[in-house]
């Protein structure tokens, strides 16, 4: 029995440890089967238990867990959409939605109900089959990413050996859904939007992957649990502060991630003033809602990945300081990054296409390669993390920040004031 099991081996889903103490979590070969063997079957009547199909039951338990994820994760966008509208309102000195529920807290729910009852329009000239399939491709890929993210010490659906690489692979499939949607709509806006989006995502995947590589070099593993485990010694063991190069890599990763999820200032694929809404222009009703949910789920996912890779994952700021298995700390850190994304969206103007590609190919990729080289040299000089290496690293980061601030200030001061037209 077999490899399929092995795929799910080490699945660390012992959130139920308190309730079902007889599951042997040390073996962890297959939590679903153990759940059935030790918890379910003893509680069934004898006649049923003798003929209980363990195989089928295992599958059903796995499906149920997937169901929990697919059921819970859409609640995130429900909160995030409202948060985005409120944040935007504060930035523009408005109040945002106020009518539905206290302070407008039920606004997204009302919008959701409206979207469900809207007509599901399919463009008659378009490609019907691909048009219907596209939202599901994007939705499924955005959710498959959550399978490898460790939310806390115990909540992790599957601990892959290749965790972070699996996430990269699955999220690169989202492009296919975008192209599918854009082409099948038979609309110029959609096609232009999807081509822009594909070019952007394919380009920014390179600096993203190279920044992840610096982390993988230091941890010497692709597994998400090992990456978190290597950051368990408080805030200064977080990979962002471990070397000056990972500090740069974090910013490259985060900016590329914003480009990956198509948000302002990189929202050319859905630039309202140019191409209406990009690849999902022709979608309405629930299918549009699926795109929307996927977008916000993606936003949360990339922030969660950034936190796991660079900001300690669910580990606390002090060694061993992880309340409730680290879940609250993880969510707070992730939401802080999500807020940063919203902040950037409502502050910065959109880039042009050529600026976008210049930024990626002429700045990010060379810097990312330099980071890899630097991390390698750093690893040769300091094979182990010691107090000395962390002190040196933090000193370099600190002085670098001060230098950057001074240089930026001088450059800003030299610029001529904008002329009134």
């Amino acid at each position, binding site marked *: 029995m077999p490899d399929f099991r092995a795929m799910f081996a080490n699945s660390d889903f012992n959130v139920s440890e308190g309730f079902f103490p007889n599951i042997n979590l040390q073996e962890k070969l297959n939590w679903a089967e153990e759940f059935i063997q030790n918890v379910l079957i003893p509680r069934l009547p004898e006649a049923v238990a003798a003929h209980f199909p363990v195989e089928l039951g295992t599958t059903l338990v796995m499906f149920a867990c997937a169901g929990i994820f697919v059921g819970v994760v859409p609640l995130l966008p429900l909160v995030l959409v409202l948060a985005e509208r409120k944040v935007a309102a504060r930035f523009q000195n408005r109040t945002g939605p106020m009518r539905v529920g206290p302070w407008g807290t039920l606004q997204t729910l009302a919008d959701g109900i409206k979207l469900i009852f809207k007509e599901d329009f399919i463009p008659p000239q378009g490609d019907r089959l691909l048009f219907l399939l596209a939202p599901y491709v994007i939705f499924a890929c955005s959710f498959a990413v959550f399978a490898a993210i460790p939310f806390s010490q115990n909540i992790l659906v599957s601990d892959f050996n290749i965790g972070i690489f699996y996430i990269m692979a699955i999220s690169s499939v989202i492009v296919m859904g975008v192209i599918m949607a854009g082409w099948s709509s038979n609309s110029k806006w959609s096609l232009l939007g999807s*081509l822009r989006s594909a070019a952007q995502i394919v380009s920014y995947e390179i600096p993203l992957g190279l920044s992840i590589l610096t982390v993988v070099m230091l941890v010497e593993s692709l597994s998400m649990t090992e990456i978190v485990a290597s950051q368990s010694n408080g805030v200064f063991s977080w990979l962002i502060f471990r070397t000056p190069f990972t500090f740069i890599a974090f910013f490259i990763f985060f900016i590329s991630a914003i480009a990956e999820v198509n948000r302002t200032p990189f929202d050319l694929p859905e630039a309202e003033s140019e191409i209406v809404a990009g690849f999902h222009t022709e979608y309405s009703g629930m299918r549009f809602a699926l795109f929307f949910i996927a977008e916000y789920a993606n936003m949360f996912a990339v922030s969660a990945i950034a936190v796991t890779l660079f900001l300690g994952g669910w580990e606390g700021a002090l060694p061993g300081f992880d309340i409730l298995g680290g879940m609250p700390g993880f969510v707070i850190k992730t939401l802080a990054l999500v807020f940063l994304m919203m902040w950037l969206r409502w502050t910065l103007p959109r880039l042009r296409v050529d600026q976008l590609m210049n930024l990626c190919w002429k700045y990010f990729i060379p810097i990312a390669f330099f980071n890899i080289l630097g991390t390698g040299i750093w690893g040769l000089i300091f094979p182990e993390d010691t107090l000395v290496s962390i002190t040196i690293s933090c000193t370099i980061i600190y002085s670098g920040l001060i230098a950057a601030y001074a240089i930026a200030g001088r450059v800003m001061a030299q610029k001529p004031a904008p002329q009134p037209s």
Partner: protein
Amino acid sequence: MEFTLKTFIFYGFALMTVSSALLVVTVRNIVHAAFSLMVTLFGIAGLYVFLQADFLAATQVIVYVGGILVLILFGVMMTSGRLEMPSQVKSHIERGQLLLGGAVALALFMLLLTVIANTPAWKNRIDDGTALPPTTERIGELILNGPFLLPFEVVSVLLLVALIGAALISRKEVRD
């Protein structure tokens, strides 16, 4: 044969791979064929997982689906106005082409069969259901510190040449 969950899922992946591969060559619309190829490549990635090659499976998805297939679709959308293959195309195939194509296909098939028959890892793999050992370490050892160092370096130089060539062809003429 014992029919377990594993065999069920294996045949699911096999059916997915073969049926979508058939669709790729029979469907008339090029874009449909490309998306059908996406399903095939996913199925192959699933089969790699059954061979305990998890890293290879993820590489398959990231390179073929996320990269090459996107490029194919870009090419199709930017070049051809008509996406349906004309139905008369069949009559243009001459007998000699058919023969040559058939011979190449047969040779490839024989090659694949011999590789399958001569791969010891498939036959001797111990199937005890324990956790997968990380394959990345072994692959890294073999490529960068073992017998495949030279082929790896040759391929990387080839890719660099291709990269420079592409940049040279596509850049604008600069006169000074």
